[in-house]
């Protein structure tokens, strides 16, 4: 669908543009990679982006919301809106395969795909993003942000962070 007036906007253009909006705490990861953009609606009434929070207390949420609004304004999208929904709840499984690759290259071990299985979620096998060793152990399930846990790699003897499965 397109909007009459200034320019034409398809849902695909908006999705493309959102790939340039980065997670403020993980600057290599876009909001699309992170899986927090649920829906883009282009109607006669304007452009609405539907988003969902990662961790409920994440302070980056407000920043992401503002960045999306800014991006929509920058594109001169008509009547831009950001809507927040909780359902279906975001889980770390929502991170795209592309997002997982970017996390690893950034030095953050990606979360395992757990499909809701708590055994996998709570006791994952984690590969060191620096040397690829599986000889790693968790040193703290809480880290520098709500979405990170701290690990230690016995292979290369370095501490690293994991994007925490949720």
């Amino acid at each position, binding site marked *: 669908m397109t909007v009459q007036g200034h320019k034409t906007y398809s849902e695909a253009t908006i999705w493309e543009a959102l790939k340039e909006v980065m997670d403020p705490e993980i600057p290599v990861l876009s909001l699309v990679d992170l899986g927090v953009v649920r829906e883009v609606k282009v109607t006669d009434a304007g452009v609405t982006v539907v988003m969902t929070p990662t961790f409920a207390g994440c302070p980056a949420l407000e920043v992401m919301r503002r960045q999306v609004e800014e991006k929509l304004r920058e594109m001169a999208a008509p009547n831009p809106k950001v809507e927040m929904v909780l359902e279906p709840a975001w889980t770390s499984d929502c991170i795209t395969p592309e997002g997982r690759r970017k996390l690893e290259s950034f030095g953050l071990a990606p979360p395992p795909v757990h499909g809701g299985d*708590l055994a996998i979620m709570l006791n994952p096998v984690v590969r060191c993003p620096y040397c690829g060793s599986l000889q790693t152990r968790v040193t703290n399930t809480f880290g520098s942000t709500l979405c990170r846990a701290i690990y230690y790699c016995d292979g290369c003897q370095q501490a690293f962070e994991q994007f925490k499965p949720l």
Partner: protein
Amino acid sequence: MTTATTPTTTTTLDTELLQALVDRLLAMADDEVILGHRDAEWTGHAPILEEDIAMANLAQDEIGHALIWYQLIEDLTGQDPDQMVYFRDAPAYRNVQMVELPKGDWAFTMLRQYLFDLYERLLLDRLLTSAYRPLADAAAKIRREEIYHYRHTSTWVERLALGTDESHRRMQAALDRLWPFAAQLFVPLSGDAALLAAGFFPAMDELRAAWQEAVHSFLTNMNLTLPQTRPVTAERDQHTHWLPILLGEMQMVARIEPDAAW
């Protein structure tokens, strides 16, 4: 705290049910925001760096969960979450006394968090099937985060209770102090029957029984003795003198500049 959620269901609620729902949501929100504040007091003071980080995370999570509950109230009544948190005085708060007590030592902090986390986890499990859809959605969202809390705090309770003589003594002292207060989590509110009838909230009796069973077996396995003290049965509008002191600190900045944009 400015993010608005969109209600996923527009239900027409009669006045009595609406009030009952708001009362319960406020109890949940206030419990979490006050506990979150107490947790945050450990920032920079925890016994080891890892725990300093963990407590800051726990605090941030609890405050985030409080925000979700306040937003559900906002969807129903239009009240602004910031106004509710920063501009209500102690008598208007509906948290249990347990969460307003000073942070105490590490054993006290871990045990309080454990007792609360277990209650919250059991409550959220039951809210997954709430007939009030926004509540079920929020429970699904929060529940996974709480799994991390519960694992962390139950491990610490175990470690301290079965650790040294001193850590055991401190954990027992924390239990003696907290046990009567924990009972207040299950004191019914006047609208509970309406909420139960509507399928919005679980029966508090059943929740209490499930909590007691889990707590009893866990703590007695840790060689801890459950005290025979009289439970606190005060209504949620009754507070200790610690709450106004806590609010004085928590609300000070917001009240100095009520119109400031953050």
